[in-house]
């Protein structure tokens, strides 16, 4: 039974993955890095995108863009989920071991950003300062290896790194010069002397010679005729200076209305709810099956192997973080398969939730008064009736409220779905923040939406519970 459902699910995932057309070039990026890649008008645009569009054109293909976490990009390319990665990726030996780099298309200076009144006047003055960087970027590796005395604060976003500087949590930020110019506020400066100069290239899967040579050809041409510099100019200065418009109404306008940004929030809400609902259904299914197996085994001694599997399932899932399960399912189990990420999200969170649901059911069953069960057996009722007529109806009274909690937990947990590129609520706030350069408003807004969703759900579950109790009186 469990196997069949699994296979069915796999098939659905596979089939939905087959939607990839032959003539698509899949670009993977992290679109929070203006001017190279960023959201505008609901679309991802930027210098890297312009170059890749040319590459796709050269190949006679259509460009499809995926937005994932920066540290997932190499994996995406390696596992054939994407063809080319471009996200201002610095050419390093370490990365070159995993994927092939195109020719460099951009020279990148890693610079130090400080407050205007800072005593730090040169990168050489960094000794035991606290410095913020974006996790996994060249700045991160450079500081880690070359200036080990520095205390590095690794943020997932440049924006968060700059926010650290605004809040004086760090004394400087090391990052790429171009986005730095976009990001700094009026009381910050970029120190002229670069820490290190490195070169951006795009990445393709090792051995993908055809794509590599076409990409190189396009890049060389565009460098030659100045169109990369043009693109850079075109995409710079797109920053909206929200900080100057400080009223709440302005913030709301720029976070929600302007440029159709509410669309991200709506998409986020829809995905969050779809994943949570799908996952709780799968969770109840998996958890139900696991607890049925465990219960039958506990009462009759049958199903030894299935019982062992069910036990391990619960132990392993509860013993590991959901984010790792999600990444393992997406990058290891569905390696080299084109799958719909929302379905992967539903499957991953469903598998995760199933383990907790199994425990919820087990606790619910255990809470049923032994005396009633014995009375059932004493009347000559077989195990299946004792379970279905006595134990389960009684257990449901404890299980249903706990399932409600599990659903509410799931709604919030879906936020890690952004790791594999799902635009859920938290990711929506990230996208908006990466355009407005104002973290505060979108975060509060999204927090309020989560709160609203959970309040509504709590109310719904409470009403259901009351109904259930009324039905008995």
């Amino acid at each position, binding site marked *: 039974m469990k196997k069949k459902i699994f296979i069915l699910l796999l098939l659905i995932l596979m089939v939905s993955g087959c939607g990839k057309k032959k003539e698509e070039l899949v670009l993977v990026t992290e679109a929070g890095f203006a001017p190279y890649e960023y959201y505008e008008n609901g679309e991802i645009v930027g210098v890297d995108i312009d170059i890749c569009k040319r590459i796709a054109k050269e190949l006679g293909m259509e460009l499809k863009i995926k937005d994932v976490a920066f540290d997932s990009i190499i994996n995406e390319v390696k596992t054939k989920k994407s063809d080319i990665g471009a996200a201002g990726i610095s050419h390093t030996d370490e990365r070159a071991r995993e994927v092939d780099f195109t020719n460099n298309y951009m020279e990148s200076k890693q610079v130090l950003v400080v407050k205007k009144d800072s005593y730090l006047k040169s990168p050489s003055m960094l000794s035991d300062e606290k410095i913020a960087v974006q996790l996994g970027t060249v700045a991160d590796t450079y500081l880690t290896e070359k200036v080990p005395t520095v205390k590095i604060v690794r943020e997932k976003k440049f924006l968060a790194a700059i926010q650290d500087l605004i809040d004086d949590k760090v004394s400087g930020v090391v990052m790429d010069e171009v986005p730095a110019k976009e990001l700094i506020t009026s009381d910050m400066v970029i120190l002229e002397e670069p820490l290190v100069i490195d070169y951006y290239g795009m990445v393709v899967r090792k051995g993908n010679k055809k794509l590599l040579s076409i990409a190189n050809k396009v890049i060389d041409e565009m460098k030659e005729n100045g169109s990369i510099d043009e693109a850079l100019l075109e995409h710079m200065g797109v920053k909206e200076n929200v900080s100057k418009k400080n009223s709440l109404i302005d913030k709301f306008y720029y976070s929600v209305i302007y440029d159709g940004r509410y669309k991200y929030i709506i998409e986020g809400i829809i995905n969050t709810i779809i994943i949570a609902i799908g996952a709780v259904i799968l969770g109840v299914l998996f958890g139900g099956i696991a607890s049925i197996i465990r219960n039958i085994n506990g009462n009759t001694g049958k199903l030894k192997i299935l019982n062992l599997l069910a036990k391990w399932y619960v132990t392993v899932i509860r013993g590991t973080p959901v984010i790792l399960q999600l990444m393992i399912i997406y990058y290891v189990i569905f390696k080299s398969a084109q799958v719909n990420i929302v379905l992967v999200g539903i499957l991953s969170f469903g598998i995760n939730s199933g383990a907790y649901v199994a425990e919820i059911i087990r606790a619910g069953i255990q809470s049923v*008064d032994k*005396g*009633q069960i*014995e*009375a*059932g*057996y*004493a*009347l*000559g*009722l*077989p195990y299946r*009736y004792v379970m279905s*007529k*006595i134990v389960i*109806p*009684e257990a449901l*009274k404890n299980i249903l409220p706990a399932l409600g909690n599990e659903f509410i937990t799931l709604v919030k947990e879906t936020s890690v779905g952004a790791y594999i590129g799902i635009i859920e609520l938290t990711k929506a706030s990230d996208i908006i923040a990466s355009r407005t350069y104002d973290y505060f408003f979108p975060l509060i807004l999204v927090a309020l939406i989560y709160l609203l969703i959970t309040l509504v759900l709590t109310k719904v579950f409470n009403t259901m519970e009351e109904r259930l109790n009324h039905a*008995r*009186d």
Partner: protein
Amino acid sequence: MLEIKNLKKNFSDKKVLKGISLKVEKGEIIGIIGPSGCGKSTFLRCINLLEKPTSGHIIFEGDDLIDNDNLEVIRRKIGMVFQQFNLFENMTVLDNIILAPVLLKVMTKEEATVEAKRLLKEIDLLDKASFYPNELSGGQKQRVAIIRTLIMKPEIILFDEPTSALDPEMIGEVTQLMRKIANDGMTMLIVSHEMNFIKNFCNRVIFMAEGVIHADGSSSDIFDNPKDEHLINFLSKIKNV
């Protein structure tokens, strides 16, 4: 009708029943007395296999119940009444009573409902048919529990301290019902601490101590003319209370 042969029961290392043999004839009303923890409940629970005996045989109307594939069918013929009533809390009084006969297809739902209502009427609880157990008094609950067993038309009923959880003023209504059932010819095994009730009601009394039967005789043998040292000791303690 029921024969228990050398019944032993251990809970892990602990020997609770150390070889009990007993023959029960149809229509006998047998009281089982003995100090707390001597294994009376365990003994009753072994008879319908709520506890699995460690060794021995339980022969009911010719069938050995140990490793019997038909256990569930035989259990219908062995009723049980518990100290804590054990009514199904999520069902009405009526549903409690008709659940087993309907599920086990002993009766149709209509037949079972008619029969249940007839039985409820006899004990003056017909007006409580659609109540839930938590809306009944202890005495009412226990009487419903007895009827729930009775509707299966058992050959024998095991009572494990049927009145111990009741307030004193409710004991009478339960014992009265038991008397009525006894008059109809039911075979009964009754564990109880109500010595007066056992003495007057049972035609045979068994005294258990430390997992064995120490005395077995008529009511007057046990209460008026005790011979076993443990029994004399036990009875004197009770009188002192």
